[in-house]
């Protein structure tokens, strides 16, 4: 049976703890009395995923069996989550492939010919053919691509339709194909509680006009956290939009969850607590450390990005979105939740090489902030692990490094916007439309593999809550100029960072290290 997550207090016998450091790793000794929060071990996966999928489709929640909804002559659309999750990408076969193959087989049995499959990428970048093939599998790819398997284009004026406004005045748009379908089957993979539910359709198949209703600084500041949907204004907005979408088009939701088996055998030491490391794990750590210390960045990046996670399916549920998503969240929380008593003066986090928006590319400084102050900070329920005004210490080299293909607008955002101000609300007022409407960014999003022009702003505001909450943010081992541009402080070593932090939180602060990834959700009492 999988062990639950744990909170360990550092004593004299506690070994140094692993910190992720971009495409590198470090072992750091934490002060006596500090806490280390470990994620739960991976839950046992479902032994026969195909059977579980069939069962979920046959006995959906608060909906009719999928088979009964399929009929000859109907217009059927399958939409699925893009490569921004899971992280690292899942070892083949991806669970979305298994689900889609089942749905497609059922559609074929029903004699449906008008079937389109859309990658619901919202304003994310278009995937390459290889990336697409990895998610859907060779069979689906070779059968449907490119005419009937394609990627959503939120900037296509012809193929997005305006649906209306929610009671709160949020505009809602939807992919024309989805809106005009007799049935949309949404195939989701929920890795963290932020994913899935109404958010899938209301962001994945929407346009900027629709997404900006909740992807804004005000909403994000009112989402505490967005990893806990009941407390998330972001999700409340998505639910309102999703309900309008469900009034427009018949949607059958299929959601899946996976365990947190994020690292393959070769990197199993990252998966384990340091006290559990075997001689082989220690050897792998040393080899990896040596390699990452001396290898060129490009080489390290290739090695890390080639990793595939041996995730195992832990649940699959289908039917009406709210019922499905409740069960999905239960399954996710079961895997991720760690109970943590009380807040702390200082939280330390190692920011890894990968976040949702840099699959197969560099994690640029804005994405480092998005990952560290955004995602990792927000993995909590009730209250942040960090007390208000506390200090967040992050380890990442944070180089001035951008992928010009995937993140062209990030370069301008860093060079121009962050040179002007780092305040999310001020940025939004001054720059939102400029980035959103830049014709070149629009073209690169539509035709190349670039994130939408507005995306760096979303990555930045993802950290807005942490920026407001933390008294100070200190990066360890980072490029000083870059960190200063981001509006934070820089320390050479973790010890220096603790000393700097004391100026903000006082002497003898309480310290908690969140040992992620694998990810966890701190349930703070």
């Amino acid at each position, binding site marked *: 049976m999988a062990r639950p997550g744990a909170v360990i207090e550092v004593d004299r016998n506690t070994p140094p703890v692993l910190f992720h450091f971009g495409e590198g790793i470090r072992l750091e000794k934490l002060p006596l009395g500090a806490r280390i929060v470990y994620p739960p071990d991976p839950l046992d996966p479902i032994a026969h995923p195909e059977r579980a999928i069939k069962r979920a489709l046959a006995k959906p929640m608060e909906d009719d069996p999928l088979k009964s909804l399929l009929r000859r002559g109907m217009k059927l659309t399958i939409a699925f989550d893009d490569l921004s999750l899971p992280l690292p990408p899942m070892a083949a076969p991806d669970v979305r492939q298994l689900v889609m193959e089942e749905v497609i087989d059922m559609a074929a049995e029903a004699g449906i010919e008008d079937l389109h499959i859309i990658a619901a990428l919202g304003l994310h970048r278009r995937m390459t053919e290889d990336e697409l093939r990895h998610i859907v599998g060779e069979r689906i790819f070779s059968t449907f691509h490119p005419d009937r398997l394609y990627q959503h284009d939120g900037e296509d004026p012809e193929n997005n339709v305006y649906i209306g406004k929610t009671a709160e005045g949020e505009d809602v748009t939807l992919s024309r194909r989805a809106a005009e379908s007799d049935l949309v089957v949404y195939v989701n993979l929920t890795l963290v509680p932020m994913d899935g539910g109404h958010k899938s359709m209301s962001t994945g198949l929407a346009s900027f006009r629709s997404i900006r209703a909740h992807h804004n600084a005000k909403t994000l500041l009112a989402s505490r956290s967005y990893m806990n949907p009941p407390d998330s204004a972001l999700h409340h907005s998505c639910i309102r939009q999703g309900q309008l979408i469900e009034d427009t088009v018949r949607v059958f939701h299929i959601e899946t969850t996976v365990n947190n088996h994020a690292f393959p055998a070769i990197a199993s030491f990252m998966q384990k607590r340091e006290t559990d490391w075997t001689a082989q794990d220690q050897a792998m750590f040393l080899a990896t450390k040596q390699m990452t210390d001396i290898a060129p960045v490009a080489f390290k990046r290739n090695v890390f990005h080639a990793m595939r996670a041996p995730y195992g399916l832990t649940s699959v549920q289908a039917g009406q979105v709210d019922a499905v998503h409740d069960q999905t969240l239960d399954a996710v929380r079961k895997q991720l939740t760690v109970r943590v008593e009380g807040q702390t003066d200082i939280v330390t986090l190692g920011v890894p090489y990968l976040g949702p928006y840099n699959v197969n590319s560099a994690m640029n400084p804005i994405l480092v902030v998005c990952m560290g102050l955004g995602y990792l900070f927000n993995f909590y329920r009730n209250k942040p692990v960090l007390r208000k005004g506390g200090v967040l210490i992050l380890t990442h080299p944070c180089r001035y490094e951008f992928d010009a293909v995937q993140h062209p607008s990030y370069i301008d955002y860093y*060079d*121009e916007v962050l040179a002007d101000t780092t305040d999310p609300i001020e940025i939004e007022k001054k720059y939102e439309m400029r980035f959103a409407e830049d*014709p*070149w960014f629009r*073209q690169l999003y539509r035709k190349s593999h670039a994130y939408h022009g507005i995306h760096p702003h979303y990555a930045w505001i993802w950290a807005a809550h942490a920026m407001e909450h933390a008294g100070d943010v200190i990066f360890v081992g980072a490029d000083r100029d870059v960190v200063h541009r981001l509006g934070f402080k820089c320390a050479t070593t973790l010890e220096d960072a603790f000393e700097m932090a004391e100026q903000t939180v006082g002497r003898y602060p309480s310290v908690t290290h969140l040992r992620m990834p694998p990810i966890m959700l701190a349930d703070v009492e």
Partner: protein
Amino acid sequence: MRSIPAFAVVKAAGGRADVATSALSMLKLGDVPEPELPTRDWVRVKPNLSGICGSDLAAISGHISLYLDPLTSYPFVPGHEVVGELEDGSRVVIEPALGCVVRGVDPPCPRCAEGRPGLCYNVTEGPIEVGLQTGYCAGTGGGWGEVLVAHPSQIHAIPESLSDEAAVLIEPFACCVHAALRGGAGKDDIVVVSGAGTIGLLTVAAVRLFTPPKRLIAIAKHPTQRDLARKLGADQVIVPADVYQRVRFATGARRLDGMNRPLLLGGADVTFECVGRADSLNDAVRYTREGGTVVAVGMPGEEKVDWAPIWQRELTVTGAYAYGSEPKHKGKRTFDLALDAAAEMHLDELTGPLFGLGEYRDAITYAMSAGRLGAVKVAFDLRRLRA
């Protein structure tokens, strides 16, 4: 002095300062006879300060275009950025162009009649030798000497409030005012000024004052230049390596990356090219929008420029040389416009260090690296000679 072997030596040395100021070079320090007054109405001027211009450095280092050789008479005393004193002690700046009025040619050539003495085609006529400007003419002397002669039409009195250090920049500033008016940027235009030496910085100031655009972007290499560009009116200052990225974003253009260098589809409306080197020129014609204007302000030499963008983008590439009368300002002299504007500009902050004539080797070496050393206008201080 004109010497083909000396020119060849300096050129072969790549214009290195130590060679360009050596005994083998074209530049000599020595005693020469005072220039004679060409006619009775000319006056003697004793320079107080005389700037070292980029064109002077180009001539000394062998980078100058040989196009200018037949338009110059030798030997000449350099120095055309001059603030000096008349015999009555009044302080003046010199407008160096040697057009028809200065040469006493009447009726004037059509260009001079238009108020453009820099384009005069009578530069071989009159009582002085061939030469476009004081400082490139054997008969007038120049600012790097103790005395020069000037026609009254070249003389502009300066107010007491304007220091010598500020006044020595009036000549280059007038060039830049003329360039700004030639560029004719509109209030909705996005303007790029490439280069932040004296001419680049003063062009930034001139564009801001005389043709304020929607956005003014300066390209500056060195930290001091970047600070000054901002002070003088640039909305945004960028480094040369970022020019395509920044101009693209500012203009909402599209960027295509080619085998050698990128290009923008769209781009700046007006570009003032104040560097005069191939790299900068080739960039300028790629980031200036189709149908846009590139104004060559800094003196270019014989540089290899790809004409394809000029052809395909139907660019207007225009020179902006010297000054004269400005039709857009009711025919007012460019020098007067510059003098009026200079009162509020604290131009003296751009001047220095100052060197004595005897320190000319150090001065020229310093001027050749001015940007890197945090200087803008390096000048000779001739007041010391009279003290």
